[in-house]
């Protein structure tokens, strides 16, 4: 088999050194009953050409991957990825190395992570960022757990109902086994689509541990994060912001400036392919004061014994391999290569490009909203939005199917997660959508509105 170098004579001579007659001798101590039933009943191995043909056939069956005017978003966004990103992540030196435990042999990875930590701090206006989490949802859950370590006394976790459903679900799962926590949901204003401040004021008691709000939220609406954080702080609680569309941070006021204590999010928009939803990139940044409660790996700057600047994993005493059951998290493998992709992507776009991209997304999305409005398809909410917005149609399911027949994936129905929004479709518009596609979207929906 082409991946394994062993020839029969290699095996024979190695067995001789070991002093065994047969490889089976090496596993003779494994209970015979287990070995007897261990055969793997899968098809025999295939040559590369066959594997490639099989996977290509399967890939081709994903008809939704191409050929449609695509307006799907809802937490994962379609953005152009420059080839240079792939040229870097494809480097075997990055792709096939392990967690950089041996700093001297891992400066490529450690320096890139240090750059990643800096870039995210710049985007969020926070002081510290970790080396990555799995994705935005699990990062949000880790943020709540972090808040709990910072404010051990407190009980109530307040989740904006306008926060992405899967973020809320993930937080619920992560907290499900932990004693003494109560999750309350903060309703949204049906007019604006933003979290009701009044609800936060009610929740803002001495029991409140933290609030978690989307920024922008699950309807694409830009939450009044400043006011939310202020109200949260008045109760002595922590404000957590969650951003699924990272590009927004290129234009919107950063969570750090608005008072968020922990800013988490999904970095998929930063140069990662859609890949049917994973791997994505969770990021988490926070205030320096809370550094010791942060989960995940951190890379720090130091020097070698000759005084050269160097980078290495640090503050590992927070982590599972040292702290075990008292660790800040159980995370070990993270999403390092995705963080590298984001680092390259953000470096390529840079100061000017990222903002231009963000502005372009705003422009196109608003263009689409007004064209739809002109065709009688109105927004569900009137709050400001970034590149995603909900519209109201009589029968979302029927509308989406009709649009699909016109070659348009018009968006996502909100009903399954929000029964109270039985008529809403969430539409995401990015730089990948031409005005022609926007026109087709309007035509398709207008027909069935």
């Amino acid at each position, binding site marked *: 088999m082409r991946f394994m*170098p062993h020839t029969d004579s290699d095996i024979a001579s190695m067995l001789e*050194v070991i002093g065994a007659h047969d490889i089976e001798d*090496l*596993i003779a101590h494994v209970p015979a009953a287990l070995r007897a*039933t261990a055969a*793997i009943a899968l098809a*025999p*191995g295939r040559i590369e050409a066959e594997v490639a043909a099989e996977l290509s056939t399967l*890939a081709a069956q*994903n*008809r939704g991957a191409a050929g449609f005017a695509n307006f799907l978003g809802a*937490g994962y966004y379609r953005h152009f990825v420059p080839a*240079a990103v792939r040229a870097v992540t*494809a480097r075997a*030196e990055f792709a*096939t*190395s*392990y967690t950089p435990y*041996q700093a001297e042999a891992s400066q*490529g*990875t450690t*320096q*890139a992570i240090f750059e990643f930590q*800096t*870039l995210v701090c*710049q985007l969020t206006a926070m002081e*510290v960022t970790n080396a990555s989490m*799995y*994705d935005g*949802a*699990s990062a949000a859950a880790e943020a709540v757990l972090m808040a709990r370590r910072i404010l051990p006394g407190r009980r109530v976790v307040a989740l904006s109902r306008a926060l992405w459903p*899967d973020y809320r679900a993930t937080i619920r799962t*992560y907290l499900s086994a932990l004693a003494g926590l109560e999750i309350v949901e903060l309703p949204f204003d049906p007019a604006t689509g933003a979290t009701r401040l009044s609800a936060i004021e009610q929740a803002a008691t001495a029991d409140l541990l933290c609030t978690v709000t989307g920024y922008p939220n699950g309807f694409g609406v830009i939450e009044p994060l400043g006011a939310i954080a202020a109200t949260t702080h008045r109760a002595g609680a922590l404000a957590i912001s969650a951003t699924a569309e990272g590009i927004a941070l290129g234009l919107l006021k950063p969570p750090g400036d608005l008072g968020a204590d922990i800013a988490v999010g999904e970095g998929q928009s930063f140069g990662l*392919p859609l890949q*049917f*939803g994973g*791997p994505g990139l969770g990021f988490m940044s926070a205030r320096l004061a809370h550094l010791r409660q942060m989960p995940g790996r*951190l890379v720090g700057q130091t020097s070698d*014994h000759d005084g050269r*600047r*160097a980078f290495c994993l*640090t503050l590992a005493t927070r982590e*599972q*391999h040292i702290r075990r059951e008292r*660790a800040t998290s*159980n995370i*070990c493998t993270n*999403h*390092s290569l995705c963080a*590298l992709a984001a*680092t*390259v992507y953000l*470096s*390529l776009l*840079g*100061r000017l490009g990222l*903002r231009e991209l963000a502005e372009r997304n*705003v422009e196109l999305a*608003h263009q689409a909203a007004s064209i739809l409005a002109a065709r009688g398809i109105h927004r569900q909410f009137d709050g400001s939005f970034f590149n995603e917005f909900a519209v109201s149609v009589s029968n979302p399911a029927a509308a989406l199917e009709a649009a699909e027949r016109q070659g348009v994936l018009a968006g996502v129905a909100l009903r399954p997660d929000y029964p109270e929004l039985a008529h809403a479709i969430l539409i995401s518009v990015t*730089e990948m959508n031409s005005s022609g596609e926007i026109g087709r979207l309007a035509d398709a929906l207008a027909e069935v509105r």
Partner: protein
Amino acid sequence: MSSVEKAPRIEVDPAPAIEKDVDESPQMGVPLIFELSSSGRRGADVARVAGAKRGAEILGAELCREDLAGFPELSEPQVLRHFLRLSQLNFAQALQFYPLGSCTMKYNPVVNDELASLPGFAALHPLTPAHLAQGALAVMADMEAALAEITGMDAVSLHPAAGAQGELAGLLVARAYHLKRGERRHKVIIPDTAHGTNPASSALAGFEVAVARSNKRGFMEAAEVRRLVTDDTAAMMVTNPNTLGIFEPEIRAIAHALHARGALLYLDGANMNALLGVAKPGHMGADIVQLNLHKTFSTPHGGGGPGAGPIGVKRPLEPFLPMPRIVKHADGWAFDDQRPDSIGRLRSFHGNFGMIVRAFAYILALGGDGLARAGRLAILNANYVRKRMESRFPAASAEPSMHECVLSHDLERRADVSTLDIAKRLLDFGIHPPTIYFPLVVPGALMIEPTETESREILDSFVAAMERIYDEALSDPAMVKSAPHTLALSRVDEVEAARHPILRWTPKPP
């Protein structure tokens, strides 16, 4: 350096002194991307500039930030050159022998990266209607079936993002299972040899950890489990082979002891490479197992991730698996998230699909026979290394090794040379060190996992290097204690990093 020059099979640095002299800014290495930045440069133009100035006006100033001061500004070639040069500072499996114990650094077939990048996979949005994503769903369904067959479990979920999240998912499944039966069990038993994620995941799943001691010979006795298991025990997490690379000989008795008290056996499958075609966790009595696709199933580690941590369970636990599940309808595959007993989701969407595609391609390429061969050759390689090293680096346990071996040494005592020193010196030989100081039960442990994709010649050169280092530690300990000597950097001061954390770049004050 003199003794280095005498070292056989070692490339001697022709002029280390000069090399350092020529480097104009020794303290700088490769500049940070921010230090290469110059105002006004662009490395990408993903949005037409035309018109793209209006977004801020649309939203209004109060919503918008100041411009991204300090953000990098470079041309595309500058960015590319920067990261290509950084890449050259890494050791990696594709380039060096990388016998990092417990990490299964086997060859990552390059074709799998190409296949995962096929537009049909890479450009597929996770919320694409199922009938337009049948290929992806088929990959996942087939992968679940393949992993069930390989592990001997009844049902598999590909949802978890990594091994540790798989552990959490598995433990929450155990918890839900007991609760469903009206029992609130508080305790999880974990061997002293366990990986750190096991206790960490247990805590996160709301359990108290009871540590079980492995015996002098390095394995877990059923008696110890019987001593610890109570009606309050939800599960025991056992890594098999354990972190000493030993197949737990009493595993079935352990399972029996647990089951007798209504507790479950969670099998940490991070070491599944040793079991391929050798023994199936399901047949050992495991109720739950997690797999690390980035270990056993060859997806690239990416400098720390991403990976994927599917879990397999026995039939009674299936209702509790994370959502969504993949189900077959008359008109094809679909996702089902109407699962009242499910523990819910631990992340967005459907799992780390890109990794699943790679691992699936790997399984197709090896097939049932190839997987069994891989397991056996991994075991052969580990035993060969163990045997060849035994005079200087004896095994920590007399028990037979499976896919990895844990060795120790007397250099600490004889020459005040630590395992860390040995690891750093090994870098000078162009070899990535084994996992060190783990498992914790072995002082100064060297945990060596060669994997099946390495040749006998590579193993021999590793052994030769280790022998050289051992002898050098006695003849010239300073050389070892001050290693590495031939990389871009000498030994990195990790204590300083922790003492004064610098965790991000900040512009120099003008």
